[in-house]
């Protein structure tokens, strides 16, 4: 990998490497934050290998990289959640002692908004905005001051101030995210870190946030911005640092940071994470496999009707939390407000009432979060693979592991799973191979319809390519695939149809000829554009 990085650098002569010592003195005085040689490992996984960057005062500096490139680990190191194994962090030219908690990071003027929406659900908006500002016993701000400041900051961010005493869990996803951003803004940190913090925001709030960031910048306050949305990156960034496999690839100025250049740097030169265009499904078969009849995800929402044909690949898109997952779960026999799911096979039609029936009729649901929803980390690779299909290996009431092993070998070869020992804990595999194990688990059940919840999230480029290839293969032999993806490029390249969801309803259905980056993304925000 080191070779590739060097290649990328040599082929990009205009990239200014970070941590340069030959900067003019005045320039260096403007630095508020500088990280050098940061590294952090978890067990044998080196999440961060050698990362260096600098942050000037009053700039919006974006960190870009693929999923799994170490962005989140970097954020957590700067936020005091993780202590780096090596490397240094300087603030205003002073070397920081090791930070061991977010509290210390805040004391050093770094305020962080984390990727997951982090609010305390049952507590009030006011309490959530001021969370962590008190001592253990000491009240640092009086009630009037708390209300006044929270009102001001939420007004800037939301335009309309929600009821400060309402439990924050009664707010919309976007407003909840806004509360966690407001918490960081209130403290007016010299460095504000936003880790994918805009993903849940609606457009208006995001625009207001960007205005706030620009005003802050005029006051000399800096932002470290992390987003995978290219349009956001080009809109707000002064500079962009690209990272790959836990290392700095290079830093670009605003003018140089074109999407094409960024993608090239992020992926390296050897493997593209770009999905190859999938051949459209031949519409000869016309065999309907799965049918959803007037499913309402919530009471009173527009019912969803959907027919899925053999060999078809359908994408579910939309902003986080707009019902994509609920629809996918519903198709797999999950709970809905009303409506029914039918499965057709060889002239028979069966109603699918729950997950077990769905599985029996050949519908397999592959969840999104590997660690929390799919894997049993201390259990062996084999056990993780075989769990839902164990019945096949049972004879006389007893399990015969040799049989699971045989089944596993075949699928492992087909999916290109790399492992040393099928009896070792699954936690010893890399993220990409873990994802393949989860796929193999459900392919072993011989499904007719595969429901995939963002399967390429957080896996490396190689695995992505393998998965794309597999999906092509599966649809070729007549499987239907319905897949949530957070990457617009995947929809453009792979899907026969894309359903864009908004507020628990299907807002727009786009076929191949209607699909474009603009048409998909504008549908996210409730606009119809071609």
């Amino acid at each position, binding site marked *: 990998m080191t070779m590739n990085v060097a290649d990328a650098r040599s082929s990009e002569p205009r990239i200014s490497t970070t941590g340069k010592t030959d900067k003019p003195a005045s320039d260096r005085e403007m630095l508020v934050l500088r990280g050098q040689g940061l590294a952090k490992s978890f067990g044998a996984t080196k999440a961060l290998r050698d990362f260096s960057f600098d942050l000037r005062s009053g700039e919006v500096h974006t960190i870009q990289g693929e999923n799994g490139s170490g962005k989140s680990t970097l954020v957590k190191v700067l936020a005091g959640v993780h202590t780096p194994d090596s490397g240094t962090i300087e603030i205003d030219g002073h070397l920081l002692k090791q930070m061991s908690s977010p509290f210390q990071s805040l004391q050093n003027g770094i305020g962080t908004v984390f990727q997951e929406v982090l609010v305390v659900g*049952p507590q009030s908006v006011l309490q959530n905005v001021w969370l962590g500002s008190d001592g253990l016993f000491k009240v640092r701000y009086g009630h009037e001051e708390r209300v006044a400041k929270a009102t001001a900051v939420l007004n800037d961010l939301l335009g309309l101030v929600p009821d400060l005493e309402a439990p924050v869990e009664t707010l919309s996803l976007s407003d909840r995210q806004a509360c966690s951003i407001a918490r960081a803004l209130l403290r007016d940190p010299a460095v504000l870190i936003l880790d994918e913090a805009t993903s849940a925001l609606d457009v208006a709030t995001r625009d207001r946030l960007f205005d706030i960031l620009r005003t802050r910048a005029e006051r000399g306050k800096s932002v470290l911005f992390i987003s995978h949305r290219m349009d956001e990156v080009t809109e707000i960034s002064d500079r962009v640092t690209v990272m790959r496999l836990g290392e700095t690839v290079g830093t670009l100025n605003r003018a140089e940071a074109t999407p094409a250049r960024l993608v090239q740097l992020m992926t390296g030169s050897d493997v593209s994470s770009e999905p190859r265009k999938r051949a459209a499904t031949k519409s000869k078969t016309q065999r309907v496999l799965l049918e959803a009849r007037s499913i309402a995800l919530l009471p009173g929402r527009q019912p969803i009707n959907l027919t899925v044909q053999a060999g078809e690949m359908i994408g579910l898109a939309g902003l986080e939390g707009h019902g994509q997952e609920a629809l996918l779960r519903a198709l797999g026999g999950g709970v809905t407000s009303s409506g029914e799911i039918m499965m057709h096979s060889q002239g028979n039609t069966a109603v699918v009432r729950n997950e077990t029936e769905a599985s029996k009729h050949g519908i397999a649901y592959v969840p999104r979060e590997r660690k929390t929803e799919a894997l049993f980390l201390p259990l062996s690779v084999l056990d993780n693979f075989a769990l839902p299909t164990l019945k096949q290996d049972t004879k006389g009431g007893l399990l015969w592991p040799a049989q699971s092993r045989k089944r596993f070998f075949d699928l492992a070869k087909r999916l290109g799973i790399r492992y040393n020992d099928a009896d070792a804990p699954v936690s010893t595999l890399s993220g990409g191979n873990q994802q393949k194990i989860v796929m193999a688990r459900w392919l072993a059940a011989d499904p007719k319809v595969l429901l995939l919840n963002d399967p390429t999230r957080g896996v490396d480029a190689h695995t992505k390519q393998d998965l794309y290839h597999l999906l092509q293969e599966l649809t070729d032999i007549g499987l239907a695939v319905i897949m949530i993806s957070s990457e617009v490029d995947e929809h453009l390249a792979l899907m026969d149809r894309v359903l864009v969801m908004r507020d628990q309803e299907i807002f727009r259905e786009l076929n191949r000829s209607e699909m474009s980056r603009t048409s998909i993304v504008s549908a996210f925000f409730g606009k119809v554009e071609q």
Partner: protein
Amino acid sequence: MGSVETIRSQLQIWFRSSVFAVLLTVFLLLITAFLNPWILAPASWAILLGTFAPFAIAAMASTPAIVSGGGGIDISIGPLMALIGIVFVKVLLPNGLGAPWFSIPIMLAMGTAVGMFNGIVIAQFRYPPVITTMSVNFVLTGISLAVAPIPIAAIPNWTSQLAHWIGPIPGSLLTIGLPVLIWVGLKKTAFNRTLFAVGADDATAFSAGIDVVRTRIVAYGLGGLFAGIGAIALTALLQSADATQGGQYTLLAIAAVALGGTTLNGGRGTLRGAVFGAAAIFLLQDVLTALDVPSTWLRSAYGAALLAGVIVGARAIMRRSGSSEAHG
């Protein structure tokens, strides 16, 4: 957001937090009063409250650990109360150290120290709370048995007033009132809202800069402090050193907390709920006795009531979390 909605959500919060226990208590109190009119006579209040006090305080002492979340629970409260009481009766009193100004601080300090020990082991060293406090429960019971192998009556001392009258008020109102006062006092500080934030979502609290470990240690310490007060109430009632008298409160107290609407998942709960939960269980026994149910059947009735109570409570909570998910 209209104000009507705010009022309604406030009412819901209040309703679901402890009103079940309050209603049950009032209902049982009415039945008790109907069956045994003498309890309405003020003269009997002091005795009744004196019997009730150790149980109510044990329930309050169990609350902070549960609220602090992370599966937090302290099942060493009962034996801790017993041990502190035994130390007072068998060690302090006979050696002339039983004066209130001397013994009260010692008893409270003992409780706080054991509570904080639990907190440190659980929060700092990341031990599972149930197993930790159960081990401490065994150790404390063992120490109690070693100090007082057989029950021993206390020499006359100041605590007896606390189970009777002090001037015009029942003495046990003082022991029951002290934890409430401390809790209300803490509400003036930042501690309560910090504690509830940690209990509801420790990862978020941590990421916002809250010291989760210290908050939890203080929560367990607070429970221990309340247990110290409970030990005084227990001694007031028993007037003896009896190693077998603590264990019965342990799990009953947690049952009372659960009945009072405090979820065992942390982050939600009230001290009021604990007191009324304890009152409901306490009165249930009275009612059954008054109804001439043989004392041998009390235990099963209490088990059935507890089961019914926690299920009703859990259903209320499930309905609430179900409705909040719909907003997501």
